[in-house]
């Protein structure tokens, strides 16, 4: 018999995400991992500014809403205050790789014992589809209406590759949630990122290549195709750093 239950760490409320958005999948994976590790009662989540700003209503653990980009600094404070707590941030690409880049890089450099779930969907969703630091070359957005011109606005930032150059971080992996196989791998990576913190190993970041059908102007299924055909080739999946595997 197969029983399909809602994870206990996920609140029983209606989420505000658009149809076809992959935030729901990633929320579920995080909640499943929290359940499986039995850590809900000591976990503190840090919500960002962006589409997942209201994640504080969706998880049953204690939650903090941070200023735009500052989640890793807030997480640092929460973790330093009570090191026995498990602290995770859940951030989008604008939050983590643009306005909050300094907080991201330095928390990684400090090997801060926190877990970061990084949603890369190559767009600012909440504000209505502007160019993100991870928008692809040529990608049409509200603020790159003729396509991202790399001569004017530069190239997308590959966060895992960049952070892997630092001595600090424990674990960096990029995953995707566009098909069943990738979702399963994403779950494994997220679980490892939390387990590392339980084991006091340090900074663990999982970048999840995600879709935004609404702002990409695609149907949910075509958006998943776009992840496969455009996003993953630019953002190759895999482990970028895993200190304990050496």
């Amino acid at each position, binding site marked *: 018999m197969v029983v399909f239950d809602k994870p206990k760490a996920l609140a029983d409320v209606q989420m505000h995400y658009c149809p076809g958005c992959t935030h729901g999948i990633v929320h579920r994976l995080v909640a499943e991992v929290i359940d499986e590790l039995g850590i809900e009662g000591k976990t503190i989540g840090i919500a960002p500014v962006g589409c997942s700003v209201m994640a504080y209503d969706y998880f049953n*653990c*204690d939650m903090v809403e*941070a200023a735009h980009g*500052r989640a890793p*600094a807030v997480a640092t404070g929460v973790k330093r205050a009570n090191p026995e707590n498990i602290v995770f941030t859940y951030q989008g690409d604008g939050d983590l790789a643009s306005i909050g880049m300094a*907080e991201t890089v330095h928390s990684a450099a400090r090997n801060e014992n926190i877990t970061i779930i990084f949603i890369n969907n190559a767009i600012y969703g909440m504000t209505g589809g502007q160019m993100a630091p991870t928008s692809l070359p040529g990608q049409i957005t509200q603020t790159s209406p003729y396509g991202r011109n790399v001569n004017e606005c530069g190239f997308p930032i590959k966060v895992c590759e960049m952070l892997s150059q630092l001595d600090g971080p424990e674990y960096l992996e990029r995953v995707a949630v566009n098909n069943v196989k990738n979702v399963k791998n994403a779950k494994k990576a997220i679980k490892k990122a939390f387990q590392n913190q339980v084991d006091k190993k340090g900074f663990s970041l999982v970048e999840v290549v995600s879709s935004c059908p609404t702002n990409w102007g695609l149907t949910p299924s075509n958006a998943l195709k776009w992840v496969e055909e455009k996003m993953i080739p630019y953002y190759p999946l895999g482990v970028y750093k895993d200190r304990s595997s050496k």
Partner: protein
Amino acid sequence: MSEKVLMKGNEAIAEAAIKAGCRHYFGYPITPQTEIAAYMAKRMPKIGGTFLQAESEIAAINMVYGVSAAGKRVMTSSSSPGISLKGEGISYMAGADLPALIVNVQRGGPGLGGIQPSQSDYFQATKGGAHGDFHMIVLAPASVQEMAELTVKGFELADKYRVTSMILADGTMGQMMEPVSLDFELAEEVEKPWAVTGTKMGRKHNIVNSLFLKPDQLEKTNIERFERYEIIKQNEVRYEEYLMEDAEICIAAFGIAARVARNAIDEARKQGIKVGLIRPITLWPFPEKAFADASNKVKQIISVELSMGQMIEDIRLSVNGKVPVTLCNRTGGMIPSPEQVLKAIINANEGGNE
């Protein structure tokens, strides 16, 4: 009798914070307050505390936000340009009703300004200093002893009212050395049932948040916060009066300016001029009544400031046009001399300064 030690103002703040139970400090180097960070870097590891040099002022204040959300006493310190950067976090902390102590050892501005003492962040400190409707409790020490005592007070008031307290000092107060007693009577620490410490599966989750998308809800949080501010205004106004009983001229000054003013007042008294001092210790809440009362008996109030005149606006609001309020000031890192203040007193006595 308690033992006194010779300390710099900045060091007195740091040690007093530790005595008050603060075990978390986050900061970023900036003159003229770096002694606080240096002191914390030495002391915190020895007492099981956290000293962390953040990557920026912005990160530092957000680390403060995190520790405060987790229910622990926490502080940061900086000087004027750094406080501007912390403005974002200070506003978020106000919105989330988080307590903390923030120290501003002011230097001249605007912009990068200089590194010499100033009081030109008065507006920023007392009127909010960042976006949205909010206040901090602003404490203005005028001695190294007060740097220490108001630090302890700042933590206690912050916790009691769930607001940020700011020590608004200046480069002189930070750098000067004086004997200081660090024996404090500490108030009982308040419970923080709202803190994020983990549900332990025994309660509904706590959320620390400043986002309220429904306008009526947001308005409600603002109104409730301002009701708390009213209680602070009623209970926490602090000021010192000096020779005000028979005064015909009133000097208004805080911090280092008050010390300069006292010298000038003593000299003026020798010359037979009836002049006194009101020294606000809380700049917010402002001692409005003290000045309103003074306006019933003095012929002029002279605001002595290390700025182009900022506190003078609050004095004018307090006296509501009843007596002239004039300015005696230097700015940009310059300090008024006792002679300059004495001259203003003599002018006022002769009906001048208008």
